[in-house]
């Protein structure tokens, strides 16, 4: 309960759990669900974008010569690491932040 203090109560929330504005998933950071974090070795990355295609959370950002992980939304599923043809992405255990 304590961590939810300050959030709106039942009297002020929209009825039926409707969310009356679009795009609110951007405000809901799911990165803290992650148990393993993908780490990119830029030397091995050939910028093939296989990871970018496979990422179910669209948490891979394209850069000019490599890619970057959006840790706000990456849930750590490891698909990018499993699919990477050059083994440029390894999964490292998350330590308590």
């Amino acid at each position, binding site marked *: 309960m304590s*961590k*939810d203090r300050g*959030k*709106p*109560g*039942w009297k002020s*929330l929209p*009825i*039926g*759990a*409707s*969310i*009356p*504005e*679009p795009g*609110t998933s951007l405000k809901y950071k799911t990165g803290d669900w992650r148990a393993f974090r993908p780490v990119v070795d830029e030397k091995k990355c050939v910028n093939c974008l296989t990871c970018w295609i496979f990422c179910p959370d669209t948490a891979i950002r394209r850069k000019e010569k490599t890619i970057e992980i959006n840790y706000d939304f990456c849930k750590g599923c490891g698909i990018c690491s499993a699919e990477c043809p050059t083994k440029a992405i390894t999964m490292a255990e998350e330590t308590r932040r």
Partner: protein
Amino acid sequence: MKTKMGFTGDEALAYAAKQSTVDVVSAYPITPQTIMVELFSEYVANGEVQTNFVCVESEHSALSACVGASLTGARVLTATSSQGLALMHEIMYIAAGLRCPIIMGVANRALSAPINIHGDQSDMMGSRDCGWVQIYCENAQEAYDWTLQAFRIAEEPDVLLPVTVNLDGFIISHAMEGVEVLTDEEAGKYLPPSKVDCRLDPRKPGTVGALVLPDYYFEFKRQQEEAMKQVPQALRKAADEFSRMTGRKYGIIDDFETRDAEVIIVALGSTAGTVRSVVKELRKKGKKVGLLKLWLYRPFPMREVADTISKAKVVVVFDRALSPGAPYGAVCQDVISTTYTHKTKPVIMNVIYGLGGRDITPTEIASIYEEALAAAKTGAVKEQVKFVGVRE
């Protein structure tokens, strides 16, 4: 000049739906509900209504289609029975949780196994915690009248809950009676087109049915309970206006000869009619007996029930459904809970009857009254839960 039509309960409900300018109907046939939607589909085919009739392959899909339609602000109706209601169970929670004011006609029927198509109330009693308002009809006239009123209750802005209009399978659903109806114009005046907000509007994008985790879920359930609390007031408002228009008086409960009654029977649905005729006979013989019929079962009318039964010596609660392993039938448990905080408590007897469509006769009801009158003298009942009409 009042118009009277010959209708079965199912037909009466369909006719009321026709006059309610329903936007969307989605349902799947099941005995004894079938005729409700069968007749309505004729109205659609004949061009008598502008309703969008959505054919589906199951009750689960029927109610799902209704939920989607209702979120657009449309006026929506479905209907089912028994196994069909059971298949809808999952979506019933969703309709209530998303606050969709859907109306559902339920021709109450026993559940399998053993398979049986006849009337008892175990289908709806099994769905009583789904968050739907429950209204029980005594006859075809009430099925017609309550359907119109149900839309008014459901669409009340501080309610926005789905409502079931319950009729006992075959006894009401298939028995033809004279039903007094409104003209289309009068019905339209009583029930203007829906003003429920559209929550699925591409011009106003948003989300419905989002995942809600422990930090918010509880708040939405609390909102639902608050909506339930607003139902009695909405019902009274709908009933008062209906009574001004038709002269037929409705409310939360319907009591008969309860004021000085030593023994009161509490019943839902068609059985209340049989009980009433027995009360009339016994009153002629000077017996102080009465009837409390509940029109509204969910939300349960705590105060109305407590006020009505508090002066009686013995209260006999009729349950046309079995709650296996529970101390009493479902209705009886609710009635008992209303008396708990009262200083003077009537003795309570629970009668389980009529399962799988077995008739209960006036003679049986009269002997229940006699047994209860005897218990009123001694202050104790022989059997707390009595199975009436079952072979040993």
